């Protein structure tokens, strides 16, 4: 089996400061990779480099296109990358408003993605949007409401629906449950777990919350000061941490 994504020697500097350095990994179809680290570890920088929001100083991000060819998305043309981000890729932002159009109805937010890939029949688009809203537990009666009228958790679920409606193969998530109440977080995590499994998605999830990676990620990378200090199967890294920093992180988590 060939990897869906090959990340090679990605480094990003902010002047002389290291954003992230020498990051290498392969991601296979259906795998979920968690990236954890504390504030300033470089995890968001890395995610943004992978998703094309930042340009790395060195390295390649090779993605397996639908025709089977591996293409470097760092050097891809802008229109091509935008097409990728509307079809095979998705990005769930920490703050839903960064990933939604707040002045467009919920149904419109989902339908827009379908139209961007060529859907034209209004009735079908609306029906598919309502179906997806249902899958993320947003009632049909809210389809014409603006996201400004939704709670934080609902906005986040809407963002997920908007991202997944085009059937992407790779989803990037930046702190998807950050800032939400614990009960809302729980519901969202269950939803994500179910969708990832159902749709056979590959995902890269950045979070500082170890419980999120325990639940969602198969593999884990631990970052500190811009470097990847440890990597492996999630349960192995959390149950048998090797690096001093990982051991510190794991022992710092409060058990309820």
């Amino acid at each position: 089996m060939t990897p869906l994504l090959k990340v090679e020697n990605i480094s990003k500097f902010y002047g002389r400061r290291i954003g992230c350095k020498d990051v290498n990994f392969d991601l296979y179809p259906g795998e979920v990779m968690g990236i954890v680290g504390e504030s300033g570890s470089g995890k968001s920088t890395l995610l943004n480099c992978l998703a094309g929001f930042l340009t790395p100083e060195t390295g390649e991000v090779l993605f397996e296109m639908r025709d089977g060819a591996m293409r470097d998305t760092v050097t891809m043309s802008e229109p091509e990358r935008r097409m990728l981000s509307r079809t095979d890729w998705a990005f769930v932002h920490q703050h839903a408003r960064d990933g939604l159009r707040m002045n467009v109805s919920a149904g419109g937010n989902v339908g827009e993605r379908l139209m961007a890939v060529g859907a034209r029949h209004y009735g079908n688009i609306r029906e598919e949007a309502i179906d997806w809203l249902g899958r993320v537990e947003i009632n049909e009666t809210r389809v014409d409401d603006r996201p400004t009228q939704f709670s934080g958790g609902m906005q986040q679920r809407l963002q997920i629906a908007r991202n997944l409606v085009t059937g992407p193969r790779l989803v990037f998530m930046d702190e998807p449950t950050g800032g939400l109440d614990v009960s809302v977080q729980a519901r969202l995590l269950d939803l994500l777990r179910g969708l990832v499994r159902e749709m056979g998605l590959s995902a890269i999830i950045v979070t500082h919350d170890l419980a999120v990676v325990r639940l969602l990620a198969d593999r884990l990378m631990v970052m500190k000061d811009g470097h990847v200090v440890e990597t492996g199967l999630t349960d192995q890294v959390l149950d048998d941490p090797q690096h001093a920093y990982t051991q510190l992180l794991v022992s710092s988590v409060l058990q309820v």
Partner: protein
Amino acid sequence: MIEIKDLSKTFTLHNQGSVVIPVMEAAELSVAQGECVALTGASGAGKSTLMRMIYGNYLAAGGSIVVDGVDVVTAEPRDILALRREVLGYVSQFLRVVPRVPTLDVVAEPLLSVGADTEAARDRARDLLARLNIPERLWSLSPTSFSGGEQQRVNIARGFAHTYPAMLLDEPTASLDAANRETVLGLIEEAKARGAAIIGIFHDEAARDRVCDREIDVSVFTPGMAA
């Protein structure tokens, strides 16, 4: 089916004075299909540690662990994940589940992971739960509020849902009354009969004597303790 050679393990606690604890050295073990081997030794001797290393949950310091042709010590993460899905089952001492998943789905999940049909997986889950005397009214509830013994039985049901060719059982009969212990031993005997290679930890001597063909005392692998 399971072949362990020259296995060693050391724990280094960096944030606790960098203390180094060597727990295992030159461990060897071989389990054929249809065999059940018991790991024995005092508490703290390294039985669960060895089991977790076989599962890939703990890293080995050296040596090899070959399960159905895959060396867990050097395999790629995706190969270990595939091994855990299809070949190697693990019934741990403690049930750890997502709080909001109904018992029936907890038990059916291993079958769904290997691509079984949802209804067929749920039927198998129902059979196992009924056999292990979990009342039907509990099947739609999450097991997090169940008693220790009930959780253990749900754990066992999940462990036996898919017909794994190799199984690791850590104290499967602890917390169980006589009737349920009998059921679990029956499940183990059935697994052996279909050719599964089993490694088990049983503090209950009678259970151990009944289902295990051999015993290995892991204390002989503790550094500094070998005779």
